[in-house]
């Protein structure tokens, strides 16, 4: 009785199935959108609303400049505070997409009378774009498979750690918006290929433009898309839709990309972009042949014509490429590109690339960490894709496979692979769950004598098998379904755990567990940078290893010799040489660079392991790469790197060692250990009696993590 009452009451609100489905879909998407945002806020809650790590400080500083001085000053900004004395043309050497985006959001908020600080905008830009990415993932999934796959893709990507690692609140880096742009471009391109519409091609060109303006990873797009087109050509899937999509996207995208100063004429002049151009010309040849075939009815004649044309086209292309390369018009591939294709290349040739931890080859554990169940859903998804091959699924397969390869080469490229892995896994999840539910439902239907309306596809597929179904099929499907939900819920908990534990640390403020299990905060970096800001002359020049350059200029507001924009290897090598020389030799180098203060990071007291002593061998290698007087074996004993009594004599007396361990021999760091016990390396240091001649200690932070030394003027009487 009561049930009929409620159903009567609800009658005006009763929706049709299609409307219901739409409502559910929209509300799921809204929830996912919010989830993607809030799961990235751990760092803000744990610490504070602050910018993380190294590069984001530069981005923050430039955004600040952009909002204060306007776009034209930003565009023409010559920064005399970094790379002293060379300076850096900021406007021409960065990807402005991120800063412009943040500045626009900032302007919009102020227009709407929200008086937010630019820092808050910067902190929250990455989560905001992550939310947008979930929407794109939904549409992309819908395009390549169906709405179900789209929804699953949106959910998976919203919490996937591989993406969260670069998009937590405060991680104000190019990648934050670039992954959105990357996926959006791909989506628009696939849409253009599927519809053959110029409008979508145009849209994908603009998506590409945004991507170029935001991140150097656009090179992946401009190589993957031609590769995809090539594969379609070879597999005989050439169509007019493809022709329109690729040509419009390539030509317009190229012209738009040239507007970014940092990219300039690279699209026509650099080796990395030549594949796209080659495929473009190949398309024209294909089109021409197609037309000739259409005009000629004689197949034999056409065969001959085909042979001649293809040979000529290939020959002309090869000659053009050869002449271009030899004459220097087309620049050869850069080291970074080489190191992607050959993972050992950087290690042997470019220490400055190999020295960055995020450029190391990926350990399998970090795949597990970042993808969790997606790692084995991925092959399953590939299986489904191959089962239902279309232009769109071929694209996602290629995207998945190439990006997985790159993710194996470099840790940071897991980020690029994440959307593909999520999409392909979503196909696997969606298809499996759909099949299973269809199975369950069709059983029910037999019992209920077909009153419910299944989807047409479900009906068709199940009809044949239904009659010979095993008795346990329903139970089996049920069990599998529960298994799938169990896995997915595990995935959700894993993702949340990883986000809160591993990826929400700002790394500028360090946290450790104290002796009683309480949280200890080391805020030494900011302490040091504010000391610099308040206690040194306005034009003081700070020498440090390049990792800290951006932070010193952004937070300390002082000129640095080198920073994280590693554009001048010689300059970095000079600093590396100074750090690995004896004090008097280093003094000459520092004098020639007008250095006033030297800053080193030291973890011996706190046990902070990514300090300068542990990075020191890279300084030696990078310095030695340019100045052969610095030799790596001088700092090693039997190929072993040590800082205790058995260390190499040059190691014990080089500037870095002296600055790190100055007066450390007097300090007892751990109960029951001798004075001068280095907790980061677990040894007693070898040189406890360090005397400085040309430098003097200016400041050491409360936990000794940052030590600043003043360079003395030359001896007055000599």
């Amino acid at each position, binding site marked *: 009785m009561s049930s009929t009452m409620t159903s009567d009451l609800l009658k005006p609100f009763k929706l049709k199935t299609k409307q219901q489905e739409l409502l559910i879909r929209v509300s799921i998407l809204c929830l996912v959108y919010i989830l993607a945002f809030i799961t990235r806020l751990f760092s803000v809650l744990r610490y504070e609303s602050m910018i993380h790590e190294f590069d984001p400080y530069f981005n923050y500083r430039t955004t600040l400049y952009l909002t204060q001085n306007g776009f034209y000053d930003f*565009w*023409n900004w*010559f920064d*005399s505070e970094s790379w*002293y*004395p*060379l*300076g850096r*043309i900021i406007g021409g050497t960065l990807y402005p997409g991120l800063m412009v985006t943040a500045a626009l959001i900032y302007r919009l908020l102020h227009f709407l009378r929200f008086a937010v600080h630019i820092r808050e905008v910067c902190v929250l830009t990455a989560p905001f774009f992550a939310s947008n990415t979930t929407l794109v993932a939904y549409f992309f999934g819908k395009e390549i498979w169906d709405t179900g796959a789209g929804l699953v893709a949106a959910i998976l990507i919203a919490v996937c750690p591989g993406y969260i690692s670069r998009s937590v609140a405060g991680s104000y880096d190019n990648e934050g918006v670039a992954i959105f742009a990357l996926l959006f471009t791909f989506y628009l391109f696939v849409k253009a290929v599927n*519809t*053959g*519409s*110029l*409008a979508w091609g145009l849209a994908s060109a603009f998506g590409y433009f945004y991507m170029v303006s935001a991140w150097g990873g656009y090179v992946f797009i401009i190589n993957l898309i031609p590769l995809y087109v090539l594969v379609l050509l070879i597999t005989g899937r050439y*169509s*007019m*839709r493809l*022709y*329109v999509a690729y040509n419009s996207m390539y030509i317009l995208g190229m012209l738009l990309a040239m507007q970014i*100063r940092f990219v300039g004429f690279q699209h026509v002049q650099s080796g990395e972009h030549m594949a796209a151009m080659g495929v473009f010309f190949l398309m024209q040849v294909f089109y021409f042949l197609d037309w000739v075939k*259409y005009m000629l009815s004689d197949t034999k004649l056409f065969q001959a014509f085909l042979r001649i044309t293809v040979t000529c086209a290939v020959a002309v292309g090869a000659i053009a490429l050869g002449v271009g390369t030899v004459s220097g018009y087309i620049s050869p591939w850069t080291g970074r590109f080489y190191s992607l294709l050959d993972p050992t290349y950087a290690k042997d040739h470019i220490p400055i690339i190999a020295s960055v931890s995020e450029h190391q080859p990926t350990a399998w554990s970090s795949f597990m960490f970042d993808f969790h169940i997606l790692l084995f859903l991925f092959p399953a998804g590939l299986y489904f894709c191959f089962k239902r091959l279309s232009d769109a699924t071929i694209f996602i397969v290629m995207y998945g496979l190439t990006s997985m390869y790159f993710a194996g080469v470099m840790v940071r490229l897991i980020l690029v692979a994440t959307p593909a892995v999520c999409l392909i896994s979503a196909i696997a999840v969606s298809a499996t769950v759909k099949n299973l539910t269809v199975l369950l439902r069709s059983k029910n239907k037999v019992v209920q004598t077909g009153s419910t309306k299944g989807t047409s596809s479900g009906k068709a597929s199940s009809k044949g098998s239904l009659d010979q179904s095993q008795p346990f099929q329903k139970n089996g499907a049920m069990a599998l379904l529960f298994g799938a939900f169990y896995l997915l819920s595990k995935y959700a908990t894993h993702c949340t755990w990883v986000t809160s534990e591993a990826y929400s640390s700002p790394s500028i403020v360090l946290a450790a567990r104290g002796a009683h299990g309480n949280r200890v905060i080391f805020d030494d970096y900011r302490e040091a940078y504010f000391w610099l800001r308040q206690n040194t002359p306005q*034009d003081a020049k700070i020498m440090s290893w390049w990792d800290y350059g951006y932070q010193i200029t952004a937070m300390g507001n002082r*000129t640095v010799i080198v920073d994280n924009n590693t554009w001048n290897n010689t300059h970095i090598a000079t600093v590396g040489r100074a750090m690995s020389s004896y004090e008097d030799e280093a003094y000459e180098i520092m004098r*020639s*660079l007008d250095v006033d203060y030297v800053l080193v990071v030291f973890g011996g007291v706190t046990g902070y392991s990514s300090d300068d002593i542990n990075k020191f061998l890279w300084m030696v290698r990078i310095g030695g790469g340019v100045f052969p007087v610095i030799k790596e074996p001088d700092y090693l004993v039997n190929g072993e790197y040590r800082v205790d009594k058995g260390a190499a004599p040059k190691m014990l007396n080089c500037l870095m060692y002296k600055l790190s361990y100055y007066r450390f021999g007097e300090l007892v760091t751990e109960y029951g250990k001798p004075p001068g016990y280095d907790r980061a390396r677990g040894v007693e240091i070898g040189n406890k009696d360090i005397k400085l001649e040309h430098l003097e200690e200016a400041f050491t932070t409360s936990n000794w993590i940052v030590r600043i030394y003043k360079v003395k*003027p*030359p*001896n*007055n*009487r*000599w």
Partner: protein
Amino acid sequence: MKMKNFSFFFIFAISFFPLLCFSFNEEAPTDRRVLVLLDDYSLKSSHSIFFNSLKSRGFNLDFKLADDPTLALKRYGQFLYDALILFSPSTDRFGGSLDSAAVLDFVDSGHDLILAADASASDLIKNIATECGVDFDEDSSAMVIDHKSYAISGTGGDHTLIASDDFIQSDVILGKNKIEAPVLFKGIAHSVNAASSLVLKVLSASPSAYSASPKSKLSSPPLLTGSAISLVSVVQARNNARIMITGSLDLFSNRLFRTAVQKAGSPNKHEKSGNEQFVTEISKWVFHERGHLKALNLGHQKVGEAEEPAMYRIKDDLKFSVEIYEWSGKSWEPYVADDVQVQFYMMSPYVLKTLSTNGKGLYHASFKVPDVYGVFQFKIDYQRLGYTSLSLSKQIPVRPFRHNEYERFITTAFPYYGASFTTMAGFFIFGIVYLYNNSLPQDISYLEARLGLDWLYRIILI
């Protein structure tokens, strides 16, 4: 009435107070307050000519024994003296708060020092000298002996009284008037530390001199010989503190000032030794009565502008100017020279230009900023023998062209402009012909069907 007069006088006195305290300062670099440390007060009379000449030049001499327990150079962070004369060679320890570190700190704070040793020189004195880049002979009994250019005198037979005329060639240090008579020297030798670039030998020994004990026989070859021996050296520290070091306290004595001198092997006999002139002139230099330069008003402007810009652009034309004055002992006179240069410097000088002067102290040059961007410095690095070294620098960034500072149209690019405009026009014409000409083959459905250009047609047709 009387009270009013008094108060007026009081205010008058107060207002002139800064002038009344004679102390070393940038505006009047000559020293005023000099502390003289002696081994015993008899030196006051035996070296009275030298001291009186200082007094007559306006110096305020404060004589103290070297072991006076109230000795102090500094009180409450302020230096009490502008210069120090150490005529106490045999002192092992100074009295009061003074020690070698305090003396060196005094010098490093820009004050001057005259140090004279003799055969009885203590380690303390030798240490101070060593810290200034001058090494006295280790052998405590050794003296400078010269069997060829000794001074002929009635008594001496050991040739330790040396007549030397090997002066440094510098009018700034030794004055314009040539010192005719040789300078008499009796004391110990020192050598200049090779590592030090700031020490100058003002009076060198002759090639035949050597340092050994005159009383004992030579058992081994002497360590210091010939012109490696310096008799009088001066140091101008990087902060322009001036130091004079000599191994002979007798050099300043009344006795040697008055002695007639004849150098062995020379027919000329001088009524009076050159000591008085030499010592007076060199003390003028040490106490900054001569050879002190100052540079000020380092300025630069873009040609045609008065304001000093915060940044230049590459290829800008700029004017650089600086004023240089020389202290004459009483007032600042314009310094006139034709060898002052300015560098436009970034790791190495990109522009090196000799400045021209107007004879009134103003030096100027104009040049073009090089076609290199970066953080440059205007650098003046003027080091001339005897003069205070001028090294000034001023940092100035140089930026590249802004995006709208390039030429908008280039003649050589006209073919490209032409090409792009004709392409645009061609496309337009082609579009019209293609859309509205019925004589074209009607087979465009082949294209149309695949291109999906309908929306474009619609836009054009609107």
